[in-house]
C-alpha cells in the first residue's frame, strides 16, 4: 500500500541538520591530539600529552575532585529534600499544593542568570556569618547547586509516584499504618528507581553546572566546568578538548547503546 513517506527534500535538510549537530563535537577530536599548547590542528604531530595532562596536572585533578564532592553533596541534599516534599504532596494532598509545587519548581523556570545573581547575594550574606559555607567555598557551591537541581529531582520523583498505584497505599492506611510506616514500608520501596534516578540526574546536572557556578565561585572552589571556562576564556587550552573527547566518548557509548535498543531491540509494535 502507498503511504505518506519522508520526501527527498526533507530527508536532505534533516541530514544536513544532523551533521550540523555532530560537527562541533567531532571537531574537538583532532584538536585534542595537537602537540602545541594552544588551539591548533595536529598537522602530523599527533600527541596525547593533553590527555596525560588531564590526570597528572594537579589543577585539573583538583577540579575533578571538587566537582565530585559538590555533585555528591548537591545530589544527596536535593534528592532528600525533593523526596520529602513529593511524598508530602502525594500522601497528604494539602491545600495550595499547586502553589507549593510552583515554588519548588521556580529555580528550574527562572532564567539561570537571575538565579545566579540571587544565589550570589545569598552566599555572600552566608559568608558574613561563617567561613565554611559561603561564597567561593565548595560547600557554598554545593548549596547553590542544590537549589538549582532540586526542581528536577522533584519532577523525577513525582513521575515515579504517578506510576505507583495509590490503592496500595490506601490499603496500608485503612489497616492502620502510620504515615511513617506507609512512607518507609510501602511508598519508598516502590519508587526506589525514581529516587535513584533523581539522585543520578541531580549529580549529572551539578557536574555540568556553569551558569550559577560562575557567579558563586572565584579562586578557591573551582569545579570542572569552571576550569574549562577558564581554559576557554584565557588562551583556549587544548586540555579542554581532551576532556571534551573523554566525556563525548562516554556519552556517545551510552546513547548509542540506548538507541540500538530502542530502534533495533525486540518489540511487538
Amino acid at each position, binding site marked *: *500500500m502507498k503511504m*505518506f*513517506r*519522508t*520526501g527527498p527534500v*526533507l*530527508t536532505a535538510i*534533516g*541530514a544536513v*541538520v544532523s*551533521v550540523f*549537530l555532530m*560537527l*562541533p*563535537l*567531532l*571537531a*574537538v577530536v583532532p584538536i585534542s591530539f595537537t602537540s602545541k599548547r594552544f*588551539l*591548533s*590542528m595536529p*598537522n602530523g604531530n599527533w600527541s596525547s600529552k593533553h590527555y596525560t595532562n588531564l590526570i597528572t596536572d594537579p589543577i585539573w585533578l583538583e577540579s575533578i575532585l571538587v566537582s565530585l564532592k559538590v555533585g555528591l553533596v548537591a545530589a544527596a541534599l536535593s534528592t*532528600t*529534600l*525533593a523526596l*520529602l*516534599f513529593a511524598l*508530602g504532596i502525594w500522601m*497528604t494532598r494539602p491545600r495550595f499544593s499547586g502553589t507549593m509545587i510552583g515554588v*519548588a519548581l*521556580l*529555580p528550574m*523556570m*527562572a*532564567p539561570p*542568570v*537571575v538565579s545566579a*545573581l*540571587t*544565589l*550570589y547575594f545569598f552566599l555572600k550574606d552566608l559568608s558574613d556569618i561563617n567561613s565554611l559555607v559561603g561564597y567561593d567555598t565548595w560547600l557554598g557551591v554545593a548549596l*547553590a547547586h542544590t*537549589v538549582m537541581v*532540586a526542581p528536577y529531582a522533584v519532577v523525577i520523583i513525582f513521575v515515579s509516584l504517578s506510576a505507583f498505584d495509590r490503592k496500595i497505599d490506601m490499603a496500608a492506611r485503612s489497616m492502620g499504618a502510620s504515615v511513617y510506616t506507609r512512607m518507609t514500608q510501602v511508598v519508598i520501596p516502590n519508587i526506589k528507581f525514581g529516587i535513584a534516578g533523581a539522585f543520578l540526574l541531580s549529580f549529572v546536572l551539578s557536574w*555540568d553546572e*556553569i*551558569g550559577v557556578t560562575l*557567579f558563586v565561585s572565584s579562586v578557591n572552589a573551582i569545579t570542572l566546568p569552571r576550569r*574549562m571556562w577558564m581554559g*576557554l576564556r584565557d588562551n583556549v587550552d587544548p586540555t*579542554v*578538548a581532551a576532556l*571534551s573527547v573523554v*566525556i563525548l566518548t562516554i*556519552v556517545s557509548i551510552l*546513547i*548509542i547503546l540506548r*538507541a540500538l535498543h*530502542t530502534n*533495533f531491540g525486540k518489540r511487538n509494535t
Partner: protein
Amino acid sequence: MRAKILLLAPLLGFLMIAYLLPFLGVVKLSFTDPILGINNYSSAVTDDLLINVVIRTFRICILVTVLSVIAAYTVTFLWLRGNKMTRFLVEVCIMVPFWISVLSRAFGWVGLLSNRGVLNSMLKSVGIDGLPFSMINSEIGVIIGMTHFLIPFAVFPLASSMKAIDERVLTAAVGMGASQRRIFWQIFVPMTKSGIIGAALLVFVFSMGFYIMPALLGGGKSVMIAELIYLRIFQIPQWGLAAAMSVILLAFVGGFLVMLIRRNGEEFK
C-alpha cells in the same frame, strides 16, 4: 497534620531562605543602589548602550528561535518517520549533543570556526589559502552556537505533537490521491501546530537567559542582556543596574512561561 509540615517544610523552607528572600533582596537593591528611586529601570529605556543590548537580545533570540524550530522540525520528522537505520542515526545525532556540556559545545565551535581551527586548516590543505577567516567573535558565531544548543530542546515538544497524529488521517489522504507535498503542508504541518508553538516558546524563553554561549562565541562584541548582568557584577560593578536588569528579564520570561503553561494546560483538557 504534623507529618504534613515535617515533609513539606524542609524543601520550602530551604528555598525560602536560599532563594526567595535573597531574590527580594535583589529587587530591593534594584530600587536602592546607588540611590533610592527607579533610575535603574528608567535607564533601561533611556541609556543607548542598554537599549542596544535589549534590541540585540531580541534580534538574536527571534532569529535563533526561527532557525532552531525549523531545523528541529526536519530532524524530528526523520527521527519519527524514517526507516530503522535513519531513526537510529538521527536519534544519536539529537541525543549526544543534548547530553554534552554547553562548554564542550562552545569549544567545538571555537575549534571549528576560529582562524586556526579545523575549517580553516581544511581550506588551507585543499589550496584555498590566504584568507584565514574567523566566524567566531561575532554575532554570527553566537547565532550558530545558540541554534546548535537549542535544536535538541525544540525536538521534544515537536516529537510529542508528531506522535499524536492519527496515522489513518495520512493514509486516508494518500488513498484520496493527495500528493506527498500536499499532505505534508496541508495536513501534517497544521496538525503539529501546537508542537511548533510550544517549541518556539520554549526555545525563546531559554535563549533570553543565555550568557555562556554569547560570552564565549561573541567575543564581547555582541553582549546580550544576561551577559550584561554578569559584566555589571564582576567587571564594572553597578549592582543596582544588574539587579534591575534581572528583575526585567524575570518578568519578561515569566510572562512567556505563563503562556506556555496555559497552552499545555489547555491541551490536557
